[in-house]
């Protein structure tokens, strides 16, 4: 059984063909990168998997179940967590409360705030925010807000995590730390990761496989090395030969 599978997925916004006949698969335990220039359809694909809108045609299956057209909360409860390109943490809540909401309404569906907060503490520790549990989220830096968003989706207990440009806007040090966190999510928690990323160093560093989207179509797929040497990719995206 294929873990995550998209078949002939297309999405049109009015006359704009955002995605056209895209096929993709993700195996359990992998870290897969999704790259492409701005407007290639990366976030659109994430929104289709996450259920923000349904595809114009094609279908998406997760663990054998057809999840096409499901609502985001239904998809979350089936085990797909996500972060947003523009982070959306709950700014007026404390860090701990942010994460405990994931415990209350994610797959665990805990009934009591106190239980949720107890479990959320463990996740904060994992992402390195335990010292900031009681700080209002509004007061945190971008890097920490991204951590919170990852922690909040981890709190829903996902098997697949969709990371939408978590490294964008981070300093080099923060990028290294975030990469370590992503690797640890995959290795220590056993969560499969599909990530959209522009920082090539990171994609090559943590991903075992990469898809390339270009104007809504998949133009290449393979290991980081294969991608870096693929003439179509070089022409479309990397611009020049990328050294690994």
């Amino acid at each position: 059984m294929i873990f995550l599978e998209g078949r002939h997925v297309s999405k049109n916004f009015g006359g704009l063909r955002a995605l056209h006949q895209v096929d993709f698969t993700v195996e359990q335990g992998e870290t897969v990168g999704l790259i492409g220039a701005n407007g290639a359809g990366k976030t659109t694909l994430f929104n289709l998997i996450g259920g923000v809108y349904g595809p114009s045609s094609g279908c998406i299956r997760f663990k054998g179940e057809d999840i096409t057209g499901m609502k985001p909360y239904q998809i979350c409860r089936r085990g797909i967590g996500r972060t947003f390109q523009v982070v959306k943490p709950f700014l007026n809540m404390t860090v701990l409360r942010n994460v405990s909401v994931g415990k209350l309404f994610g797959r665990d569906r805990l009934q009591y705030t106190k239980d949720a907060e107890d479990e959320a503490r463990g996740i904060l520790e994992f992402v390195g925010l335990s010292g900031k549990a009681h700080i209002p989220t509004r007061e945190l830096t971008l890097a920490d807000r991204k951590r919170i968003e990852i922690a909040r989706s981890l709190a829903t207990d996902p098997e697949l995590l969709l990371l939408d440009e978590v490294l964008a806007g981070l300093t080099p040090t923060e990028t290294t730390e975030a990469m370590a966190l992503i690797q640890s999510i995959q290795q220590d928690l056993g969560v499969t990761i599909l990530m959209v990323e522009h920082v090539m160093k990171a994609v090559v560093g943590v991903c075992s496989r990469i898809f390339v989207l270009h104007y809504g179509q998949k133009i290449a797929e393979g290991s980081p090395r294969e991608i870096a040497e693929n003439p179509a990719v070089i022409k479309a995206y990397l611009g020049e030969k990328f050294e690994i």
Partner: protein
Amino acid sequence: MEGGFTRDMGREKRLLGVVGLILLFLCLLPLVASDYHVSVTLDLMMWIALTASWIVLSGYTGYISLGHSAFFGLGAYLMAMTWTRIPFGFSVVLAGLLSAGFAFAIGFPFLRVRGPYFVILTLGLTEFTKYLFINLEIKLGGTVGRILMMTPSLHILYYSILVVSVIAVATAYYIKNSRFGTALFSIKEDEDAANAIGINTSLYKWLAFGLSASFPGMVGSILALRRSYIDPYTVFNPIVSFQVIVMAFVGGLEDVEGAIVGAVILTLVSEALWARYPYTYMIILGVIMVFIVRFMPLGLVFPIKQRLAKKSKESHR
């Protein structure tokens, strides 16, 4: 940790004590106070019930609704149509159910609309119900207004409103601290993110909308008896919604203490002003409002609560 726990218990006990005293005062008031004071307090509790129920949807989820007037009017008309036919308490409950049912019926399409569009849509709802009733009344009865005869005494109405407002306040308070409330506040923070972490946002908004609508229905039904004459222009009056919003903003949108404080201040201040300055009291009220919105945008209660929280934190150290 241990100390914090017992202190919380102490605070809860004190809170219960204060609430108990206020309730006792309100229960005994009609026995000693003049009819004037009883009716002012009745007014006050009516606004508390309306504002407390309003924040359940609009304060907690951020969907600012102008629909309270519509539900208020529905309740008033239900009472007008059932008065003397079925027991009055039964009508009040029925009015609550009717308003909630109406809100549930229109909730899904209405709550798909966000931000200012939702505000306008709910304003439209009040106008729609108003003209619907004007036309129905002319078609069916040939007239527009209705007079209610042999209405219950002021005291009976007072206690009915007291019960409704206590339930409204308790509901708003309980929801704020519940799992349901956490879902509503998450929707306010970011609806898409809330949905993505497993919150069925449409369902929770819908429940909050229906629950919030049931109280203006009940209040409207009691107020129909209090006024003993109703017509669509007065009971489907958008001013009710506006007043509720202003009260909530003055006191604070996010908790029931704010709703109570806002309702109390506005009712008492306008009561105190209108007799003394009949021509200028709206201006004075306006100035006060501008001042509050400019300098305390989160309402009067929020800064006080924050100070208290800070104090308890310091003593905790």
